[in-house]
């Protein structure tokens, strides 16, 4: 084949993808998981790589799952809020360390403080996909039955903690 045709062929393929892409909505992720059971997962822990953690370990508890990464700038924005929330000791926070290098993740927590009960490593982002994560940070509030009750896309602010998360946690704690 004539090698000078190659650029045109590559472009034609690209064009086909772009055309399909037009009809897709990148913000529409198979996510609105609120009200549905949290996806099952089992992952190694960040600080104890030999130990595993599974969603079942939190059965019967109201807890937060916070997706974070050391490369994520917006996570720095929300991190102090999480640290304060952890100090208040009202709801356990589990960190999902998303597509990160374990060393960098640990160093990051050392630098900024570790609000998490524990963090698990989602190195290839597979669990993130199950949770419909399309940007870091994201935070999920999960109830005693393992059902997602609230989802925050983007950084958690103090406002969100006080007006949404805390009242909901109190209400969910009352349920059996």
């Amino acid at each position, binding site marked *: 084949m004539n090698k000078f045709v190659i650029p045109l062929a590559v*472009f034609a393929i690209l064009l086909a993808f772009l055309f399909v*892409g*037009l009809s*897709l909505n990148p913000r529409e992720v198979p996510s609105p998981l609120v009200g549905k059971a949290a996806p099952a997962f089992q992952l190694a822990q960040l600080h104890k790589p030999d130990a595993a953690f599974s969603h079942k370990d939190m059965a019967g508890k109201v807890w937060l799952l916070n997706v974070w990464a050391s490369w994520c700038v917006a996570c*720095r924005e929300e991190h*102090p809020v999480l640290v304060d929330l952890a100090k208040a000791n009202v709801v356990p926070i589990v960190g999902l360390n998303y597509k990160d290098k374990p060393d960098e993740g640990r160093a990051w927590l050392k630098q900024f403080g570790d609000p998490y009960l524990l963090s698990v490593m989602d190195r290839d*982002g597979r669990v993130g*996909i199950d949770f419909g994560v*399309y940007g870091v940070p994201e935070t999920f509030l999960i109830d005693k039955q393992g059902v997602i009750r609230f989802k925050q896309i983007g950084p958690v602010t103090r406002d969100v903690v006080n007006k949404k998360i805390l009242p909901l946690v109190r209400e969910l704690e009352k349920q059996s």
Partner: protein
Amino acid sequence: MIPELGQFALILALLLAVVQGTFPLAGAARGVREWMALAKPAAQGQFVFVAIAFGCLVWSFLQDDFSVLNVATNSNTRLPTAYKVAASWGSHEGSLLLWVLMMATWTVAVSLFSRHLPNEMVARVLGVMGLVSVGFLLFMLLTSNPFDRLFPPAPEGRDLNPLLQDPGMVIHPPMLYMGYVGFSVAFAFAIAALLGGKLDATWARWSRPWTTAAWCFLTIGIALGSWWAYYELGWGGWWFWDPVENASFLPWLIGTALIHSLAVTEKRGSFKSWTVLLAISAFSLSLLGTFLVRSGVLTSVHAFATDPKRGVFILAFLSVVIGGSLALFAWRAPKVGLGGRFDALSRESALLANNVLLAVAAGSVLLGTLYPLFLDALNLGKISVGPPYFDAVFAPIMAPLVFLMGVGPIARWKKAEVPDLVARLKWALGAAIGAGLAVPFLAGKWTPMIAFGLALAFWVFAASFVSVKERIRNFRGGLAARMAAQPRSYWGMLIAHVGVGVFIVGVTVVKGYETERDLRMDVGDTVTVGAHTFRFDGVRDVVGPNYRGARGDVTVSRDGKVIETLHPEKRIYTAQQMPMTEAAIDTGLFGDIYVSLGEPVDGGAWSVRVYAKPFVTWIWGGCFLMALGGALAISDRRYRVTARRESAVSANQAA
């Protein structure tokens, strides 16, 4: 009335662009002189009408004409005047009009500075640019009219996005667009050469200054955008590998390759079809970037309001322009033939490697940017590609490129010898490695990455020094006279290369030595970061023209002496109720001190971020040097001399 005038001017501009895009091209193909002669007046007329339209839009913004939808959504009576002007390109519609204005400006510049070019060439170049202009004017008039009316008029405007209310935002988009659109000139020259079947050294010499000019604007535009993100987003980062950033970076990478490849085509006649392909690619990637930003295909912090109709239009336009030019390339390029031969080791081969590396870098950035889209389109799931991918892929490609940057300018054309190169560069290499190993030790922290980064930077500096020393050795006179004897294009190249070195110093030192402290501070608390001590003196309320907010007082001292007070702010813009962080930055040649306010904690305490960023300004300083180098290269005598000589020749022939 004024908006309607603007709209009418746009329609007239479109008609003139159609004339400019058809008759001159047909005339050049059939040899009709009168048709070709239409190119210049049509281009200049188009510019006048686009400028009128742009003036009408700015006027509507200045007059707070909220019966214009675009003004009502992007301005406010209390918006400061400078930002009202800037707001005219703050929206999708307005920025398109700016794009078209830039396009018309480049076209007029070509029509004015092309007196020495053959008629067919001018007609073809302006014709191709006219066709591109037709596409954008149609796009604007059919899907994104900046003059759409709103009835009944809004009583008050929604205000410009607070993120855009910043001096950097006033100049960043015009610079970036000048760069994007500027590549249309190189593109038009390439298409004209393919149409005419004459791809020779003269063609490369005509294209070079235009390409370099566009590249300079793009460099400045990207640097301004990065600087703006650094001080305005309040996170202290300077590059996020966001799809929109990548969209501007891709044409820059290919444009850089194009500049180097044009040099070979001009000097040695080689790489012809490759150079043409790069010229087509650089502009194609500018268009692709426009598509990605405005169609909503990828999510991004910069995304404009999206509309599927727009996406379909730009995609159709892309397929016509890029598909058409690549088809023309596939048809014509095989007949171009090969240029001068060169050995496996020569300046040509160094530049070839440069081109390959830059193209691979651009390819991997493009892949990372579009990968989520590919998977989604194939129904393989949703993923996001973050900075880890780009960092892992990009640096290993850039390192050999920077190494070549030292060798290339010293290697001989056609054939270079390894022992000779080693003999000439061994001291530079030794100095670079030595300094790379030693400096981090003196700075107090040694890691392999810092040492490697600094060694690369010192390598660029040392090799540039060797290059100058060898260049001036054979000239007579004092040092100053011998240096002045070198052409400006040489100094341009050298300064641009040194700029890359300066950039690497900035990136390496910031990555290696920055300190970031996020902490809760009560009034009177102090924190020490690096050599500086910061005291938080509380927060006062402030009221701005279109915002209210809190302003912190942070006293900075060094060795017990007070240096200055910084005032980070947290603002709420009234019209959109949007909170904004205004970091206070003390900028210095050897580092920035960066303080920003987080959220209020109970009892007058705030969460405060204090960053020390050593050498961070070198990142943008390096970019500025690269652009300065480009500007120097354009001002080289030989472009003016040959221009004069050629016009003299054509005048003689005419006589």
